[in-house]
């Protein structure tokens, strides 16, 4: 009880002490909260992006086959399907057209996805990614949110036209719009059936850009991929796991690069905090010597400094973390989006769901609050062992 009352008194004094040095305290808190804001925003954004990518890639084909020539991808003949008939364990092979359409008006690249969802296993699951409307029939397309916003131009984009390579127009009606949650992959996408995509790109009827393989047993994906590669040496065989690894790798590399920049900021902050905390003014030294001679123990002075540090770091942490949450949730992580999402002309306007995980939060806490407390307590200890008689002189 006595100890609790003592702590309460010292906390009371530490708060009034912070208030008396409010401009210095506020300066430290602003910088501290800024560093936490940057680190937490970055951590939440990276986590939200990788989570979103993982969730959505669950719908990607287990194996994708692309024909290569001179080290570059080219159209793959549908007759390759026949060559794979000898491999046991393949459940289905679905041709796909994956291409890019350049919209000269907006300067954006759209991703065109041509599939026949009705003839592929689990094709109907694609419908789960569509917000309004249904899977596309002939001369229909499902639009990503970004494409829809551009083509609609304030209207509803029920009917729109795209140019074939010979500049003739091909008209589509909108079958639906992808859900915002899938923006990371579908924002710039136009999804249509295989024949329409072929027609748009003027591809021959017996060609596709790649073949999507579904296997009966997911445990055999790697084995089957090796067999396909052996059977079709002029192709590139990519598994879903590899694509996922690539995404993780891309975000990992980018987040690693940005982390180095942020850690530099963190280091600068620690130096700043150390300087601020250790640079005791003559008034502060005098205050400590007065407190000591009137009966405060060294441990009382350390406790006082500890509570000051806890107050500054807790307020800064809560403010910085809250701002980071708001930044990621409501401002779509606008500070980090260019770093993390890369090159696309049509930048996805992501509706990110910030990921607040205990482990990650504790990591940020350890990287910021602990060094700050150390930067506060150690100089305070040095100051607290000032001989009490210095107040006499």
């Amino acid at each position, binding site marked *: 009880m006595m100890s609790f009352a*003592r702590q*309460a008194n010292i906390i009371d*004094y530490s708060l*009034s002490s912070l208030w008396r040095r409010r401009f210095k305290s506020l300066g430290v808190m602003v910088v501290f909260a800024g560093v936490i804001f940057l680190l937490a925003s970055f951590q939440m954004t990276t986590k939200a992006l990788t989570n979103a990518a993982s969730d959505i890639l669950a719908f990607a084909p287990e194996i994708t086959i692309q024909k290569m020539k001179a080290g570059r991808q080219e159209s793959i003949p549908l007759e390759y399907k026949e060559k794979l008939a000898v491999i046991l364990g393949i459940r289905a092979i679905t041709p796909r057209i994956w291409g890019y359409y350049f919209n000269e008006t907006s300067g954006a690249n759209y991703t065109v996805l041509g599939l026949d969802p009705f003839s592929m296993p689990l094709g109907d699951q694609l419908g789960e990614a569509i917000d309004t409307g249904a899977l596309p029939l002939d001369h229909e397309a499902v639009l990503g949110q970004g494409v829809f916003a551009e083509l609609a131009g304030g209207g509803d984009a029920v009917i729109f036209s795209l140019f074939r390579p010979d500049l003739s127009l091909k008209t589509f009606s909108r079958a639906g719009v992808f859900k915002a949650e899938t923006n990371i992959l579908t924002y710039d996408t136009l999804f249509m059936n295989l024949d329409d995509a072929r027609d748009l790109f003027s591809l021959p009827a017996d060609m596709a850009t790649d073949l999507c393989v579904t296997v009966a047993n997911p445990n055999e994906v790697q084995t089957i991929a090796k067999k396909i590669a052996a059977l079709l040496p002029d192709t590139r065989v990519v598994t879903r796991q590899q694509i996922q690894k690539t995404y993780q790798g891309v975000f990992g590399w980018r987040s690693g690069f940005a982390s180095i920049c942020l850690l530099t900021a963190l280091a600068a902050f620690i130096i700043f905090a150390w300087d601020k905390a250790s640079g005791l003014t003559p008034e502060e030294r005098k205050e400590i010597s007065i407190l000591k*001679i*009137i*009966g*405060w123990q060294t441990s009382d002075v350390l406790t006082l400094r500890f509570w000051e540090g806890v107050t500054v770091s807790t307020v800064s942490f809560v403010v910085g973390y809250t701002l980071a949450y708001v930044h990621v949730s409501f401002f779509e992580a606008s500070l980090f989006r260019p770093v993390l999402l890369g090159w696309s002309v049509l930048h996805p306007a992501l509706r990110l769901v910030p990921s607040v995980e205990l482990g990650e939060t504790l990591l940020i806490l350890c990287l910021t609050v602990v060094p700050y407390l150390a930067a506060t307590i150690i100089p305070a200890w040095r100051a607290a062992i000032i001989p009490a008689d210095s107040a006499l002189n």
Partner: protein
Amino acid sequence: MTASFVALEDVCKIYNQGQPNQVRALHNINLVIAANSMVCLQGASGSGKSTLLSIIGCVFPPTSGRATIAGKALSRMPDRFLTIHRRNTIGFIFQHFNILPDLTVLENITLPLMPLGIGPGARKERAERLMEMLSIGHRSNFPARQISGGELQRVAIARALINDPPIVLADEPTAHLDHTLSLAFMEIMRELQRAGKTIILTSHDPLITQHPAVERIIAIEDGEIHVP
């Protein structure tokens, strides 16, 4: 009230012992101060009177010899216990008052009570009694920087008395006061002595050294008690 007295036997104080800058501040001090008395330590600057005041004030123990303050021997007493003994036994009044200018009068006075775990209500009650006694009650919520020198010293006196210590030490208390305020200060000290406190002052000021309440003058010269 605990019988409070000061007894020093062969007390020596050496600063930076064993270092090239070693200084012998006190040498073979033998001194007894009776409880409920008022004495004045007199000496030139550097004579050792502040060091003697620090030992009597339980700020640090002597290098050698025996110092017994209010019934407790200080020699080899760890700093932690020295602080507790000082807190319970000694009230300090400093030459420059050593009041924290940004705190209010009330906050300054109650500062020694904070680490004792005494709640705000009890702290205020104790402080109000002292402020009333010292006629500074109307300044309770004023920041210390806004009050006069005489009031500042009364704040320092109130802070020294807040723990009801048996011994009050005042280091050059009238050095920054005019004649009237110095007389008022000595009257307060006389009242405290009447209330049972032991008062130990350091001063050159004749107003103090010749004051009728001062029972004894102890002259310090080159770290030793000078017997005329």
